[in-house]
């Protein structure tokens, strides 16, 4: 059975949306903007991912999960299809690649995403993910994972995290 390339790509993107970031469970790698490209070459599906932070220990796990999910999806269509995953640094991953649904889901687990227009060196515009207040303080630029910072909301008195702006 031959599947047309467009349908196949659509199927792959759909399956990629099932691959969650292992350290931010409800958010998928598609929502985080980590998927740069899905290419079909004959019987091969090539998925190109952009690492968020270069020392992120979740990368290997993400790669394996991508292979599992995509393989399952494409082999339902054609058993002879294969998937390959590679990481690339060009273009570099930046915070503005996180899409709207990613931003909303991150909020539900207490992680704010700074303004997508942020440039390096700008002061941060961060809203509390719980009460939307802007009266927040930075506790630590570095957080529990390489991509996150620790903040505190002075309005609702909750600690929260924010994605570290990368521009």
């Amino acid at each position: 059975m031959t599947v047309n390339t467009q349908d196949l790509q659509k199927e792959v993107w759909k399956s990629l949306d099932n691959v969650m970031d292992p350290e931010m469970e409800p958010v998928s790698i598609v929502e985080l903007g980590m998927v740069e490209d899905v290419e079909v070459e004959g019987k091969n599906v090539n998925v190109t991912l952009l690492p968020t932070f270069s020392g992120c220990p979740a990368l290997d796990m993400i790669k394996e999960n991508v292979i599992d999910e995509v393989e399952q999806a494409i082999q339902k269509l054609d058993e002879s299809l294969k998937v390959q995953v590679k990481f690339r640094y060009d273009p570099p991953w930046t915070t503005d690649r996180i899409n709207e649904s990613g931003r909303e889901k991150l909020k539900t687990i207490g992680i704010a995403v700074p303004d997508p227009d942020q440039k390096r060196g700008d002061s941060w515009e961060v809203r509390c993910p719980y009460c939307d207040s802007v009266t927040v303080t930075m506790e630590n630029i570095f957080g529990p994972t390489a991509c996150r910072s620790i903040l505190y909301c002075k309005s609702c008195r909750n600690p929260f995290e924010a994605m570290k702006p990368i521009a």
Partner: protein
Amino acid sequence: MTDNKILRELIYQLADDNFIHSYRGSEWLGLVPHIEEDVAYSSITQDTMGHAYMFYKLLEEMGEGNSDELAHARKPKDFRNAILLEEKNGTGTYLDNPDYDWAFTVVRNLFYNVYKETQLESLKQSSYEPLSITARKIETEQYYHLMHWKTWFMQLMQSTEEARTRMENAIRRVWKDFGGVISQGRYADEFSARKYIEPEEVLGQRCLDKLGELCKSVDFNLEGKPGMEKGNGRNGEHTEDLKQALETLSEVYFSDAEASSW
């Protein structure tokens, strides 16, 4: 020497600097002045190991061998890191009476990171594209590291008399071997001739100007040229401290190959 060999010499300098610098940082885990610093410094160290990994991967792609092997299985004389970065954090070991010097660490980290920023800016224009792409990626993270060490440096330089004395002593100590960080080793001229990176004198001066400004802002004058008293790591000269570091960090790699693939 072939172009390829010369390029590899430069990438070994970059990979080994980041690798050994990250290792010395990791030894501070649980020992830094306060818990927020533990979160910050270990995160910086993790990023920095990622930077080393990216450079080792470039070498792997050039046919130098597996990146894990490059990091763990080379002899000290094959390392190209600056000697300043391999120096122990203090007396004792991580497990046995660690008496580490925070002032030395802050000054070493700041000075190296000012150089690294200068280096990355130059590498972004490198004629070897994989190097410029890698530099662009690293820069986004390094920005936060530099900011972090600047904050410590400025605060401790303007703190109590004891802090000031310790910091000034640390600056004098770092200065004695900072020349080895700036050095590009015996192939420096070839690097710039091929436009892999700007000339040693140009980058070095740019870095020293930045450091001079920073020190001046807290009333400290950096005098004279930085030295290279312990030798030039870019040419394979190293101290016992590198040997100790490599033995420790490669222990698992050599005892259980399967475990180290994690």
